[in-house]
């Protein structure tokens, strides 16, 4: 039996779709950051993804290659989210190869999450991107164990990430700058977590 894999072309389209949805939601992402942090998240991530968009090579024939571009783009993003997303996507870049099976995506999400946790020190419940990354990694693993195709695995991850992100609104932050404004961030979704949800949701149109 041939394991169904995500192709390089699909990964390309997925990343482009991610860029587009982030650009479309940049103002909201910044606004969330304004309420819980310093208001630059939308700008930070848009700048990175626009640069990445310009550097993605449609001729690239490896999924790993596309994720590597994403990772290095975020490493030049600065801020808190830049290097964390860089480490996260680096996990995907290292786990994937020419293509990417659901298992490889689960490997990548787990490795990326481990890197983000080590570097940023946040735990689930700290109202950060981790709150979306962690359930998404679990959903990918469950789907991979059930031999799901990437499309289905990513849809499950998207749902899990979205729920994880939504729930951050109920947390008062302890990590990152949101912790400094305490109660004022109550009721506000963490923008980093929302971006993670947008990432997995972007797969829907590109991966089928």
């Amino acid at each position: 039996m041939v394991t169904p894999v995500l192709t390089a072309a699909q990964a390309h389209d997925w990343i482009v779709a991610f860029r587009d949805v982030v650009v479309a939601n940049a103002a909201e992402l910044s606004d969330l950051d304004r309420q819980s942090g310093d208001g630059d998240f939308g700008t930070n991530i848009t700048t990175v993804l626009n640069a990445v968009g310009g550097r993605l090579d449609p001729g690239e024939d490896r999924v790993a290659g596309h994720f590597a571009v994403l990772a290095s783009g975020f490493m030049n993003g600065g801020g808190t989210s830049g290097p964390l997303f860089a480490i996260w996507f680096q996990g995907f870049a290292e786990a994937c190869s020419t293509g990417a099976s659901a298992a490889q995506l689960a490997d990548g999400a787990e490795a990326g999450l481990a890197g983000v946790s080590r570097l940023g020190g946040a735990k689930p419940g700290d109202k950060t991107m981790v709150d979306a990354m962690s359930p998404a990694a679990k959903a990918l693993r469950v789907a991979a164990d059930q031999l799901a195709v990437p499309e289905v695995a990513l849809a499950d991850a998207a749902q899990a990430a979205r729920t994880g992100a939504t729930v951050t609104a109920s947390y008062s932050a302890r990590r990152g700058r949101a912790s400094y404004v305490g109660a004022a961030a109550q009721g506000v979704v963490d923008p980093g977590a929302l971006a993670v949800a947008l990432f997995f949701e972007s797969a829907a149109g590109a991966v089928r």
Partner: protein
Amino acid sequence: MLDVHQFINGADSYEADVLDGFARAHAGLVRWNRAPSYVVRRNPAPDKVALVSGGGSGHEPLHSGFVGDGMLDAAVPGHVFTSPTPEQVIAATKAVAGDAGALLVVKNYTGDLINFRLAAEILDASGVRVRSVVVDDDLATETDGDGDPGRRGTAATLVVEKVCGAAAERGATLDEVADLATRVVARSRSLAVSFSGAQLPGSSIRSFEVPADEVEFGVGIHGERGTARHPLRPVRELVAELTARISGALDLASGHRVVAVVNGLGATPAAELYLAYGELAGCLERAGVRLARGLVGTYVTALDMRGLSVTLTVADEEILALWDDPVRTAALAW
């Protein structure tokens, strides 16, 4: 249509435009490397320990304004309120560090910690000796919690950079400078209040507004809200409360000597800072604490916030002597 009351060309070119003007104004003191972006002193001092600092832009004159003789060798500015990248930190450090190595002065913010840590790991791996010190003076974010981010790094950074810059200039080793930095950090606490939030370049929204009869207490330097909102009081009472809380945290007692910094957050007139300094001096006097050195001005800012911070550092002979050493930078010179 432009509709934001800022003297800028637009948000996109903001940081580069500022640095270009800064480098032109202080061409005798500094050189700006456009990409990756960092500022180094014009006359390199390769034999001493290099001091490198950085963080998001929007805190001007910190850090670029402190590059020069007796203070920083390099400053690494990120975008507004956004940590610089590891690539920038690495390039800046390599440009100024010699065999004596480099001390990275990092303000306690998650983004800065992460980016400077990544940079330090890579520098270390490539044979550049580095040590890092994390400045965490802001009492407003002090908590008991273990995994908490802890006190933010704010205006005490300036004291660390001045004192350690002087030590490096005198020929101290990397470990000596780093230990000194740690000691100054441990002895420094700050607290800030503000009448307004910050307005990002090109943005028509202020991060928060304060009613005219209130004051935001415990603000940071990124336009974040404070920890509480208090009724407005005469600055005498406001400064008394700031001083009491800082004194408590530092266990200040009669006979202690301190270095004090009354710092504007960006849009506060110098006159009001001096006025606050006068009140601070009175508070310390009444407590029997000796105000050994004082600095009043706009040094560590949050764009155009109309607020001020008070920083106290418990001083000893060594710290005072290093504080008095000559310094020649864009923002500080004596």
